[in-house]
């Protein structure tokens, strides 16, 4: 199951492409499936394509949930290592 990790659009490129920052990593992705994306928007990615555009508030809510999920996952790993 593909996680919906918001990526920040940092630069629009020719041919419906864009540069995004995903957790600090810079990637070039396609915007061909979404419309009206601007620098400063967030997008949800899958295999190099933006699927959905999010505003900053939506992205923050998603990132907060993902942080909680990651913490829960790390807790399971830690519990397994300690067992």
């Amino acid at each position, binding site marked *: 199951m*593909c996680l919906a990790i918001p990526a920040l659009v940092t630069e629009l490129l020719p041919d419906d492409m864009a540069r995004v920052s995903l957790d600090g990593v810079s990637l070039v992705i396609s915007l061909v499936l979404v419309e009206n994306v601007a620098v400063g928007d967030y997008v949800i990615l*899958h295999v190099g394509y933006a*699927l959905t555009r999010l505003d900053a508030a939506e992205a923050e809510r998603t990132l907060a*949930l993902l942080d909680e*999920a990651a913490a*829960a*996952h790390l807790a399971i790993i830690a519990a397994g290592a300690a067992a």
Partner: protein
Amino acid sequence: MTGGLALEVVLSGGVVRAARLRAGRPVTLCQAMLGRPAAEVPAAFERLYALCGRSHRIAARFALDAARGRDATGAARQAALRDLAAERVGEHLRSTFTTAASLGLPAEPAEVAALRAAFAATRPGAPGAELDASLAVLGLHTASSGWAARMLDAAGPPADGAGTVDALSAADDPAVLASLARLGGAFAALPHLPLRRPETGALARSLGTGAPRDRLAARFAEIRHAAALLRGDAGDAPASWFASGTLPDGSGFAAVETPRGRMHHLAAVDAQDRVTGCAVLAPTEWNFHPDGPLVHALPGLRVGAGAAAEARLRWLVGLFDPCVGCSLTLREGADA
């Protein structure tokens, strides 16, 4: 979520001699749901999954309702079925387009615009009015010309002696749910049914043969059917699209036909309506099981060599439709 897939294929004389699939252990979000108010959980699932968020929301909602002892109302079921139909159209289009694009199969500018419009029309809350016109531009109503016909041609010739698939169906729900309840994450990571190697998704739902062209034709037929459902021209969605109820231990379950196959959710709540149990089994875990249908579809397959072999195999992987990226490594040799 599956932590990534890696397919290694051994070729000799243009024929697949062996295949091995490694799947990262799925990292589900269930642990993060424990202790949350149940009312928050369906929306959280939708927010966190990129491809099948609506299916997750629906499955979580109805599993939780069942755990609370509530039956799904007719109106809620109808709304859910419309959401599933819209998600199915959008995901089948997106998956086909992105796989084809990765192989350098072009779409004309008008077709790209139609894909984008169709994709937008299937998003949550979208009016959907442009969907049929967009599908017509893509040639999906007849699949005899345009983008759809070119995709079918690229997928290869019609089935000729290809075997039928072992379809995961609603009849399997009791066995699947019993194992998921008993084994939890271990079963969700490596699901199995005795003496079976089940596949799920468009082809399994069509009960067709396993040839690549038939896989894509089944997907296109589902797009047409789901679009007709959204127009109100196809009656009700089949009952198998959606099921929910309770297990003997009182936990709730839901089984939902997502775009890429049947998905199962389990949920339990306490007296304060907080989540105390959660398990999710995704369709990719069946189709991309290390001993599953994709791995067993490959040996003996004539794919040619070099770039042609890689393209053929990438098409096939795309038609099995993983919900995460799948790397592909080819090497020449006698066996694995």
